Protein backbone atom coordinates (compact mmCIF):
# COMPACT_ATOMS: atom_id res chain seq x y z
CA UNK A 1 0.00 0.00 0.00
CA UNK A 2 1.66 3.16 -1.19
CA UNK A 3 0.64 6.27 0.71
CA UNK A 4 2.91 8.60 -1.23
CA UNK A 5 1.63 11.01 -3.84
CA UNK A 6 3.18 11.67 -7.22
CA UNK A 7 4.43 15.22 -6.74
CA UNK A 8 2.20 17.98 -8.07
CA UNK A 9 3.47 20.56 -10.55
CA UNK A 10 1.86 23.80 -9.47
CA UNK A 11 2.97 26.36 -6.93
CA UNK A 12 0.39 25.36 -4.33
CA UNK A 13 0.56 21.62 -4.90
CA UNK A 14 3.35 21.30 -2.35
CA UNK A 15 1.23 23.09 0.28
CA UNK A 16 -1.62 20.66 -0.26
CA UNK A 17 0.70 17.67 -0.21
CA UNK A 18 2.36 18.88 2.98
CA UNK A 19 -1.05 18.98 4.68
CA UNK A 20 -1.78 15.51 3.35
CA UNK A 21 1.43 14.09 4.79
CA UNK A 22 0.85 15.83 8.12
CA UNK A 23 -2.61 14.30 8.38
CA UNK A 24 -1.19 10.96 7.26
CA UNK A 25 1.32 11.01 10.10
CA UNK A 26 -1.23 12.09 12.71
CA UNK A 27 -3.87 9.58 11.63
CA UNK A 28 -1.20 6.94 11.19
CA UNK A 29 -0.12 7.37 14.79
CA UNK A 30 -3.73 7.31 15.98
CA UNK A 31 -4.34 4.19 13.92
CA UNK A 32 -1.35 2.35 15.31
CA UNK A 33 -2.10 3.36 18.89
CA UNK A 34 -5.73 2.27 18.72
CA UNK A 35 -5.24 -0.95 16.78
CA UNK A 36 -2.24 -2.06 18.81
CA UNK A 37 -4.11 -1.30 22.03
CA UNK A 38 -7.07 -3.24 20.73
CA UNK A 39 -5.06 -6.30 19.81
CA UNK A 40 -3.10 -6.09 23.05
CA UNK A 41 -6.27 -5.97 25.12
CA UNK A 42 -7.83 -8.86 23.21
CA UNK A 43 -4.84 -11.04 23.97
CA UNK A 44 -4.12 -9.82 27.48
CA UNK A 45 -7.71 -9.83 28.70
CA UNK A 46 -9.06 -12.88 26.94
CA UNK A 47 -11.44 -14.81 29.11
CA UNK A 48 -9.92 -17.59 31.13
CA UNK A 49 -11.54 -19.72 33.82
CA UNK A 50 -11.16 -18.31 37.29
CA UNK A 51 -10.58 -14.76 36.07
CA UNK A 52 -12.94 -11.94 36.69
CA UNK A 53 -13.17 -8.57 34.94
CA UNK A 54 -12.24 -5.41 36.79
CA UNK A 55 -15.43 -3.63 37.81
CA UNK A 56 -15.26 0.07 36.99
CA UNK A 57 -17.50 2.59 35.32
CA UNK A 58 -14.73 4.69 33.86
CA UNK A 59 -12.40 7.51 34.66
CA UNK A 60 -13.12 11.20 34.38
CA UNK A 61 -9.47 11.93 33.94
CA UNK A 62 -9.20 9.55 31.00
CA UNK A 63 -12.23 11.20 29.42
CA UNK A 64 -10.67 14.62 29.75
CA UNK A 65 -7.41 13.47 28.19
CA UNK A 66 -8.89 11.70 25.27
CA UNK A 67 -11.34 14.47 24.57
CA UNK A 68 -8.93 17.37 24.74
CA UNK A 69 -6.02 15.79 22.86
CA UNK A 70 -8.08 14.97 19.75
CA UNK A 71 -9.79 18.35 19.98
CA UNK A 72 -6.49 20.22 20.05
CA UNK A 73 -5.11 18.11 17.23
CA UNK A 74 -8.09 18.62 14.92
CA UNK A 75 -8.24 22.34 15.60
CA UNK A 76 -4.56 22.56 14.69
CA UNK A 77 -5.22 20.69 11.45
CA UNK A 78 -8.05 23.11 10.77
CA UNK A 79 -5.96 26.20 11.32
CA UNK A 80 -3.14 24.97 9.10
CA UNK A 81 -5.60 23.91 6.43
CA UNK A 82 -7.35 27.25 6.58
CA UNK A 83 -4.25 29.11 5.56
CA UNK A 84 -3.74 26.98 2.48
CA UNK A 85 -7.43 27.13 1.58
CA UNK A 86 -7.42 30.86 1.78
CA UNK A 87 -4.38 31.04 -0.48
CA UNK A 88 -6.04 28.85 -3.12
CA UNK A 89 -9.69 29.82 -2.88
CA UNK A 90 -9.83 32.90 -0.72
CA UNK A 91 -11.55 36.15 -1.62
CA UNK A 92 -8.45 37.80 -3.08
CA UNK A 93 -6.63 34.67 -4.09
CA UNK A 94 -6.66 35.13 -7.85
CA UNK A 95 -3.47 36.86 -8.98
CA UNK A 96 -4.42 40.05 -10.87
CA UNK A 97 -2.05 39.27 -13.74
CA UNK A 98 -3.39 35.77 -14.32
CA UNK A 99 -3.84 34.74 -17.93
CA UNK A 100 -7.51 34.00 -18.60
CA UNK A 101 -8.70 30.95 -20.48
CA UNK A 102 -12.31 29.84 -20.80
CA UNK A 103 -13.14 26.19 -20.26
CA UNK A 104 -16.68 25.25 -21.20
CA UNK A 105 -17.65 21.80 -20.04
CA UNK A 106 -20.39 19.93 -21.84
CA UNK A 107 -21.51 16.37 -22.23
CA UNK A 108 -18.84 14.94 -22.99
CA UNK A 109 -16.15 17.34 -24.14
CA UNK A 110 -14.11 20.27 -22.93
CA UNK A 111 -14.21 23.29 -25.23
CA UNK A 112 -11.30 25.55 -24.42
CA UNK A 113 -11.38 29.13 -25.66
CA UNK A 114 -8.11 30.97 -25.62
CA UNK A 115 -7.73 34.69 -25.21
CA UNK A 116 -5.48 34.92 -28.22
CA UNK A 117 -2.59 37.29 -28.69
CA UNK A 118 -4.27 40.21 -26.93
CA UNK A 119 -4.77 38.18 -23.76
CA UNK A 120 -8.44 39.21 -23.53
CA UNK A 121 -11.26 36.74 -23.57
CA UNK A 122 -14.16 37.69 -25.78
CA UNK A 123 -12.12 39.51 -28.40
CA UNK A 124 -11.77 38.76 -32.11
CA UNK A 125 -8.53 36.84 -31.88
CA UNK A 126 -9.97 34.19 -29.59
CA UNK A 127 -9.91 30.60 -30.79
CA UNK A 128 -11.41 27.39 -29.45
CA UNK A 129 -9.96 23.91 -29.26
CA UNK A 130 -11.60 20.65 -28.30
CA UNK A 131 -10.17 18.69 -25.38
CA UNK A 132 -6.89 20.53 -25.37
CA UNK A 133 -5.84 23.01 -22.70
CA UNK A 134 -2.49 24.67 -23.22
CA UNK A 135 -1.05 26.88 -20.54
CA UNK A 136 2.22 28.66 -19.95
CA UNK A 137 4.47 27.85 -17.02
CA UNK A 138 5.89 30.47 -14.67
CA UNK A 139 2.78 32.56 -14.90
CA UNK A 140 -0.61 32.31 -13.13
CA UNK A 141 -3.51 31.14 -15.25
CA UNK A 142 -7.16 31.65 -14.36
CA UNK A 143 -9.72 29.32 -15.86
CA UNK A 144 -13.20 30.75 -16.41
CA UNK A 145 -15.13 27.55 -15.86
CA UNK A 146 -18.65 27.08 -17.21
CA UNK A 147 -20.94 24.17 -17.95
CA UNK A 148 -23.44 23.97 -20.74
CA UNK A 149 -25.74 21.23 -19.59
CA UNK A 150 -25.08 19.35 -16.33
CA UNK A 151 -22.53 19.60 -13.53
CA UNK A 152 -19.05 18.50 -14.54
CA UNK A 153 -15.81 18.81 -12.61
CA UNK A 154 -12.50 20.18 -13.82
CA UNK A 155 -9.89 17.84 -12.35
CA UNK A 156 -6.19 17.99 -13.17
CA UNK A 157 -4.61 15.60 -10.65
CA UNK A 158 -1.04 16.72 -11.22
CA UNK A 159 -2.02 20.34 -10.64
CA UNK A 160 -4.00 19.51 -7.47
CA UNK A 161 -6.87 21.36 -9.09
CA UNK A 162 -10.49 20.34 -8.87
CA UNK A 163 -13.53 22.53 -9.34
CA UNK A 164 -17.10 21.63 -10.19
CA UNK A 165 -18.44 23.30 -13.33
CA UNK A 166 -22.04 24.29 -12.66
CA UNK A 167 -24.54 25.35 -15.33
CA UNK A 168 -25.53 28.94 -14.71
CA UNK A 169 -22.28 29.76 -12.92
CA UNK A 170 -18.96 31.13 -14.14
CA UNK A 171 -16.35 29.96 -11.64
CA UNK A 172 -12.75 31.15 -11.56
CA UNK A 173 -10.00 28.64 -10.86
CA UNK A 174 -6.37 29.72 -10.76
CA UNK A 175 -3.08 27.87 -10.75
CA UNK A 176 0.52 28.43 -11.73
CA UNK A 177 2.38 25.55 -13.32
CA UNK A 178 6.00 24.95 -12.42
CA UNK A 179 6.93 22.05 -14.65
CA UNK A 180 6.30 21.91 -18.42
CA UNK A 181 4.77 18.70 -19.69
CA UNK A 182 1.57 16.94 -20.62
CA UNK A 183 -1.01 16.17 -17.97
CA UNK A 184 -4.43 14.57 -18.00
CA UNK A 185 -7.64 16.49 -17.34
CA UNK A 186 -10.52 14.31 -16.19
CA UNK A 187 -14.13 15.04 -15.42
CA UNK A 188 -14.69 14.27 -11.76
CA UNK A 189 -18.46 14.64 -11.44
CA UNK A 190 -20.83 12.06 -12.88
CA UNK A 191 -22.32 13.76 -15.91
CA UNK A 192 -23.99 11.02 -17.88
CA UNK A 193 -23.08 8.00 -19.93
CA UNK A 194 -19.93 9.54 -21.41
CA UNK A 195 -18.54 10.71 -18.07
CA UNK A 196 -15.89 8.01 -18.08
CA UNK A 197 -14.44 9.27 -21.29
CA UNK A 198 -14.44 13.02 -20.76
CA UNK A 199 -10.73 13.51 -20.93
CA UNK A 200 -8.66 16.41 -22.18
CA UNK A 201 -4.96 16.93 -22.56
CA UNK A 202 -3.30 19.72 -20.64
CA UNK A 203 -0.05 20.91 -22.13
CA UNK A 204 2.16 23.23 -20.13
CA UNK A 205 4.70 25.09 -22.24
CA UNK A 206 7.54 27.42 -21.46
CA UNK A 207 6.24 30.98 -21.71
CA UNK A 208 7.89 31.91 -25.01
CA UNK A 209 6.88 28.62 -26.63
CA UNK A 210 3.37 29.24 -25.39
CA UNK A 211 3.23 32.73 -26.85
CA UNK A 212 4.45 31.40 -30.21
CA UNK A 213 1.80 28.74 -30.19
CA UNK A 214 -0.95 31.22 -29.35
CA UNK A 215 0.05 33.47 -32.21
CA UNK A 216 0.05 30.52 -34.61
CA UNK A 217 -3.38 29.34 -33.50
CA UNK A 218 -4.88 32.79 -33.52
CA UNK A 219 -3.93 33.14 -37.16
CA UNK A 220 -5.29 29.76 -38.16
CA UNK A 221 -8.44 30.33 -36.12
CA UNK A 222 -9.28 26.70 -35.81
CA UNK A 223 -12.89 26.20 -34.80
CA UNK A 224 -13.87 22.89 -33.30
CA UNK A 225 -17.61 23.12 -33.87
Amino acid at each position, binding site marked *: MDWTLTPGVTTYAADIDRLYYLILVITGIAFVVVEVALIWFLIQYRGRPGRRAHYTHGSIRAEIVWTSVPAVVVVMIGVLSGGVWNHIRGRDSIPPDALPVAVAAKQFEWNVTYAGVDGQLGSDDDFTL*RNELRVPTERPVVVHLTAEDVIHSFFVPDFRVKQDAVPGMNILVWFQVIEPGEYPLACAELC*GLGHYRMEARVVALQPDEYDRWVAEQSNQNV*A*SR
Partner: protein
Amino acid sequence: MRRVLVPAVFLLFACAGGDQGGGAAESEDAAGGMTSTGPMGQATVSGMVRFDGAAPANPTIDMSEEPTCAEKYEGPPTDPQAVVNNGMLGNVFVYVKSGLPDGASYSPPSTPVVLDQEGCLYHPRVFGVMVGQTVEIRNSDALLHNIKAVPTANRGFNISQPQAGMTTNRTFNTAEIMVPFECNVHGWMRAYTGVTTHPFYATSGEDGAFTIQGLPAGEYVLEAWHELFGTRETTVTVPESGSVSVEFTFSPSAS
Protein backbone atom coordinates in the same frame (compact mmCIF):
# COMPACT_ATOMS: atom_id res chain seq x y z
CA MET B 1 -39.75 -0.75 -30.41
CA ARG B 2 -42.97 -1.46 -32.22
CA ARG B 3 -43.15 -3.92 -34.96
CA VAL B 4 -46.02 -3.39 -37.36
CA LEU B 5 -47.64 -6.74 -37.97
CA VAL B 6 -48.24 -6.36 -41.70
CA PRO B 7 -46.57 -7.94 -44.70
CA ALA B 8 -43.26 -6.42 -45.67
CA VAL B 9 -43.09 -3.52 -48.09
CA PHE B 10 -39.77 -2.96 -49.76
CA LEU B 11 -38.02 0.25 -50.54
CA LEU B 12 -35.33 -0.38 -53.03
CA PHE B 13 -33.29 1.17 -55.48
CA ALA B 14 -30.38 3.41 -56.07
CA CYS B 15 -31.19 6.14 -58.48
CA ALA B 16 -28.59 8.29 -60.20
CA GLY B 17 -26.39 9.93 -57.68
CA GLY B 18 -26.50 7.69 -54.71
CA ASP B 19 -28.30 5.27 -52.58
CA GLN B 20 -30.66 7.68 -50.94
CA GLY B 21 -34.15 6.56 -50.13
CA GLY B 22 -37.27 6.75 -52.23
CA GLY B 23 -38.62 3.96 -54.29
CA ALA B 24 -41.44 1.79 -55.37
CA ALA B 25 -43.48 0.08 -52.75
CA GLU B 26 -43.95 -3.57 -53.61
CA SER B 27 -46.33 -5.39 -51.44
CA GLU B 28 -45.20 -8.76 -50.26
CA ASP B 29 -47.52 -11.18 -48.68
CA ALA B 30 -45.50 -12.58 -45.81
CA ALA B 31 -48.12 -14.48 -43.89
CA GLY B 32 -50.59 -15.17 -46.62
CA GLY B 33 -52.89 -12.58 -45.15
CA MET B 34 -54.24 -9.35 -46.54
CA THR B 35 -51.86 -6.67 -47.71
CA SER B 36 -52.45 -3.14 -46.53
CA THR B 37 -50.17 -1.17 -48.78
CA GLY B 38 -51.68 2.03 -49.92
CA PRO B 39 -52.36 3.28 -53.41
CA MET B 40 -49.36 3.24 -55.73
CA GLY B 41 -48.86 4.60 -59.21
CA GLN B 42 -46.57 4.08 -62.19
CA ALA B 43 -45.09 7.51 -62.47
CA THR B 44 -41.63 8.76 -61.62
CA VAL B 45 -40.87 12.17 -60.19
CA SER B 46 -37.28 13.05 -60.90
CA GLY B 47 -35.71 16.23 -59.73
CA MET B 48 -32.73 18.46 -59.19
CA VAL B 49 -31.79 20.68 -56.34
CA ARG B 50 -29.80 23.69 -57.35
CA PHE B 51 -27.72 25.98 -55.27
CA ASP B 52 -27.70 29.55 -56.36
CA GLY B 53 -24.74 31.48 -55.00
CA ALA B 54 -21.42 31.01 -53.30
CA ALA B 55 -21.21 27.85 -51.26
CA PRO B 56 -20.26 28.55 -47.64
CA ALA B 57 -17.08 26.85 -46.47
CA ASN B 58 -17.75 23.77 -44.42
CA PRO B 59 -16.11 24.02 -40.98
CA THR B 60 -13.03 21.96 -40.24
CA ILE B 61 -13.48 19.43 -37.48
CA ASP B 62 -10.92 19.38 -34.70
CA MET B 63 -10.44 15.61 -34.34
CA SER B 64 -6.91 15.96 -33.02
CA GLU B 65 -7.87 14.53 -29.63
CA GLU B 66 -9.71 11.58 -31.19
CA PRO B 67 -6.92 9.71 -33.04
CA THR B 68 -9.00 6.57 -33.67
CA CYS B 69 -11.19 8.65 -35.98
CA ALA B 70 -8.66 11.24 -37.11
CA GLU B 71 -6.40 8.62 -38.67
CA LYS B 72 -9.21 7.58 -41.00
CA TYR B 73 -8.76 10.89 -42.87
CA GLU B 74 -5.98 12.14 -45.14
CA GLY B 75 -6.09 15.76 -44.13
CA PRO B 76 -8.14 17.61 -41.51
CA PRO B 77 -11.74 16.40 -41.86
CA THR B 78 -14.52 18.88 -42.63
CA ASP B 79 -18.12 18.73 -41.53
CA PRO B 80 -20.26 18.28 -44.66
CA GLN B 81 -23.02 20.71 -43.71
CA ALA B 82 -23.38 22.07 -47.25
CA VAL B 83 -22.69 19.60 -50.06
CA VAL B 84 -22.42 21.84 -53.11
CA ASN B 85 -21.00 20.60 -56.45
CA ASN B 86 -21.25 22.62 -59.65
CA GLY B 87 -24.19 24.59 -58.42
CA MET B 88 -26.06 21.51 -57.20
CA LEU B 89 -26.99 20.81 -53.58
CA GLY B 90 -26.86 17.41 -51.96
CA ASN B 91 -28.33 16.07 -48.71
CA VAL B 92 -31.63 17.80 -49.33
CA PHE B 93 -34.58 15.78 -48.06
CA VAL B 94 -37.52 15.90 -50.47
CA TYR B 95 -40.89 14.45 -49.54
CA VAL B 96 -44.57 14.62 -50.34
CA LYS B 97 -46.09 17.10 -47.94
CA SER B 98 -49.70 16.83 -49.11
CA GLY B 99 -51.87 15.53 -51.92
CA LEU B 100 -52.07 11.82 -51.23
CA PRO B 101 -55.59 10.36 -51.49
CA ASP B 102 -57.65 10.48 -48.29
CA GLY B 103 -57.26 7.43 -46.11
CA ALA B 104 -54.16 6.22 -47.91
CA SER B 105 -52.01 4.27 -45.52
CA TYR B 106 -48.71 2.56 -46.23
CA SER B 107 -46.99 -0.18 -44.28
CA PRO B 108 -43.37 0.30 -43.36
CA PRO B 109 -40.82 -2.02 -44.93
CA SER B 110 -39.22 -4.71 -42.85
CA THR B 111 -35.74 -3.81 -44.04
CA PRO B 112 -34.16 -1.36 -41.65
CA VAL B 113 -32.47 1.87 -42.57
CA VAL B 114 -28.87 1.68 -41.45
CA LEU B 115 -27.35 4.70 -39.72
CA ASP B 116 -23.65 4.09 -39.42
CA GLN B 117 -21.07 5.90 -37.31
CA GLU B 118 -17.75 5.80 -39.09
CA GLY B 119 -14.81 8.14 -38.78
CA CYS B 120 -16.82 10.02 -36.14
CA LEU B 121 -19.41 11.08 -38.72
CA TYR B 122 -22.90 9.77 -39.37
CA HIS B 123 -23.51 7.99 -42.66
CA PRO B 124 -25.92 8.86 -44.15
CA ARG B 125 -26.21 12.38 -42.82
CA VAL B 126 -29.75 12.89 -44.13
CA PHE B 127 -32.20 10.09 -44.75
CA GLY B 128 -35.82 9.14 -44.65
CA VAL B 129 -37.57 6.47 -42.68
CA MET B 130 -41.19 5.45 -42.39
CA VAL B 131 -43.22 5.41 -39.21
CA GLY B 132 -42.66 2.00 -37.64
CA GLN B 133 -39.65 1.19 -39.77
CA THR B 134 -36.51 0.16 -37.94
CA VAL B 135 -33.51 2.43 -37.87
CA GLU B 136 -30.50 0.21 -37.27
CA ILE B 137 -27.80 2.30 -35.64
CA ARG B 138 -24.34 0.86 -36.06
CA ASN B 139 -21.01 1.75 -34.54
CA SER B 140 -18.12 1.21 -36.92
CA ASP B 141 -15.61 3.10 -34.80
CA ALA B 142 -13.69 1.42 -32.00
CA LEU B 143 -14.69 4.00 -29.44
CA LEU B 144 -17.72 5.30 -27.56
CA HIS B 145 -20.44 6.95 -29.57
CA ASN B 146 -23.53 8.30 -27.92
CA ILE B 147 -26.66 8.52 -30.02
CA LYS B 148 -29.07 11.16 -28.89
CA ALA B 149 -32.26 11.73 -30.86
CA VAL B 150 -34.03 14.97 -30.01
CA PRO B 151 -37.39 14.89 -31.74
CA THR B 152 -40.35 17.11 -30.88
CA ALA B 153 -43.27 14.86 -31.86
CA ASN B 154 -41.68 11.49 -31.15
CA ARG B 155 -40.11 9.94 -28.05
CA GLY B 156 -36.41 10.70 -27.99
CA PHE B 157 -33.62 8.54 -26.70
CA ASN B 158 -30.10 8.91 -25.42
CA ILE B 159 -28.09 5.71 -25.64
CA SER B 160 -24.52 4.59 -26.05
CA GLN B 161 -22.48 2.16 -28.06
CA PRO B 162 -19.09 1.83 -26.40
CA GLN B 163 -17.62 -0.74 -28.79
CA ALA B 164 -17.29 -1.26 -32.54
CA GLY B 165 -19.77 -3.68 -34.02
CA MET B 166 -22.59 -2.80 -31.62
CA THR B 167 -25.99 -2.19 -33.21
CA THR B 168 -29.14 -0.76 -31.72
CA ASN B 169 -32.59 -0.67 -33.29
CA ARG B 170 -35.06 2.13 -32.84
CA THR B 171 -38.32 3.14 -34.49
CA PHE B 172 -40.36 6.33 -34.62
CA ASN B 173 -44.11 6.34 -34.18
CA THR B 174 -45.10 9.74 -35.52
CA ALA B 175 -44.37 11.64 -38.69
CA GLU B 176 -41.81 14.36 -38.08
CA ILE B 177 -39.70 16.55 -40.32
CA MET B 178 -36.86 16.32 -39.24
CA VAL B 179 -35.57 14.37 -36.23
CA PRO B 180 -32.01 15.40 -35.38
CA PHE B 181 -29.39 12.97 -34.09
CA GLU B 182 -26.30 14.06 -32.26
CA CYS B 183 -23.37 12.47 -30.48
CA ASN B 184 -22.41 14.15 -27.23
CA VAL B 185 -18.94 12.65 -27.21
CA HIS B 186 -18.21 14.23 -30.57
CA GLY B 187 -20.12 17.46 -30.59
CA TRP B 188 -19.93 18.05 -34.36
CA MET B 189 -21.71 14.83 -35.33
CA ARG B 190 -25.12 15.43 -36.83
CA ALA B 191 -27.66 13.41 -38.77
CA TYR B 192 -31.25 14.13 -39.66
CA THR B 193 -34.09 11.86 -40.52
CA GLY B 194 -37.45 12.63 -42.04
CA VAL B 195 -40.09 10.34 -40.58
CA THR B 196 -43.03 9.91 -42.93
CA THR B 197 -46.19 7.86 -43.06
CA HIS B 198 -45.66 7.10 -46.73
CA PRO B 199 -42.74 5.93 -48.89
CA PHE B 200 -42.61 8.96 -51.16
CA TYR B 201 -39.40 10.68 -50.21
CA ALA B 202 -35.80 10.92 -51.34
CA THR B 203 -32.53 12.57 -50.43
CA SER B 204 -30.61 14.41 -53.13
CA GLY B 205 -27.21 13.04 -54.02
CA GLU B 206 -23.96 14.92 -54.40
CA ASP B 207 -25.08 15.88 -57.89
CA GLY B 208 -28.31 17.29 -56.57
CA ALA B 209 -30.45 14.62 -58.21
CA PHE B 210 -33.29 12.71 -56.60
CA THR B 211 -36.10 10.38 -57.70
CA ILE B 212 -39.45 9.50 -56.14
CA GLN B 213 -41.17 6.49 -57.67
CA GLY B 214 -44.66 5.12 -57.58
CA LEU B 215 -46.77 8.15 -56.77
CA PRO B 216 -50.38 7.72 -57.86
CA ALA B 217 -51.59 10.27 -60.39
CA GLY B 218 -52.63 13.55 -58.85
CA GLU B 219 -51.52 16.94 -57.62
CA TYR B 220 -49.00 17.11 -54.83
CA VAL B 221 -47.08 19.58 -52.73
CA LEU B 222 -43.44 18.56 -52.41
CA GLU B 223 -41.20 20.07 -49.77
CA ALA B 224 -37.40 20.15 -49.85
CA TRP B 225 -35.51 20.57 -46.56
CA HIS B 226 -31.87 21.47 -45.95
CA GLU B 227 -30.22 21.71 -42.55
CA LEU B 228 -28.75 25.16 -43.22
CA PHE B 229 -30.78 26.73 -45.97
CA GLY B 230 -34.34 26.10 -44.86
CA THR B 231 -37.21 24.68 -46.85
CA ARG B 232 -38.67 25.16 -50.32
CA GLU B 233 -42.04 24.04 -51.62
CA THR B 234 -43.38 23.31 -55.03
CA THR B 235 -46.47 21.76 -56.54
CA VAL B 236 -46.27 18.97 -59.08
CA THR B 237 -48.86 17.20 -61.17
CA VAL B 238 -48.05 13.53 -61.43
CA PRO B 239 -49.33 11.68 -64.51
CA GLU B 240 -50.68 8.13 -64.65
CA SER B 241 -47.37 6.89 -65.95
CA GLY B 242 -44.11 8.24 -67.25
CA SER B 243 -41.93 10.87 -65.71
CA VAL B 244 -42.30 14.41 -64.45
CA SER B 245 -39.51 16.82 -63.48
CA VAL B 246 -39.22 19.04 -60.46
CA GLU B 247 -36.65 21.62 -59.42
CA PHE B 248 -35.75 23.34 -56.19
CA THR B 249 -33.33 26.17 -55.75
CA PHE B 250 -31.67 27.10 -52.49
CA SER B 251 -29.53 30.11 -51.79
CA PRO B 252 -27.01 30.93 -49.11
CA SER B 253 -29.20 32.65 -46.53
CA ALA B 254 -29.49 31.06 -43.12
CA SER B 255 -32.58 28.93 -42.51
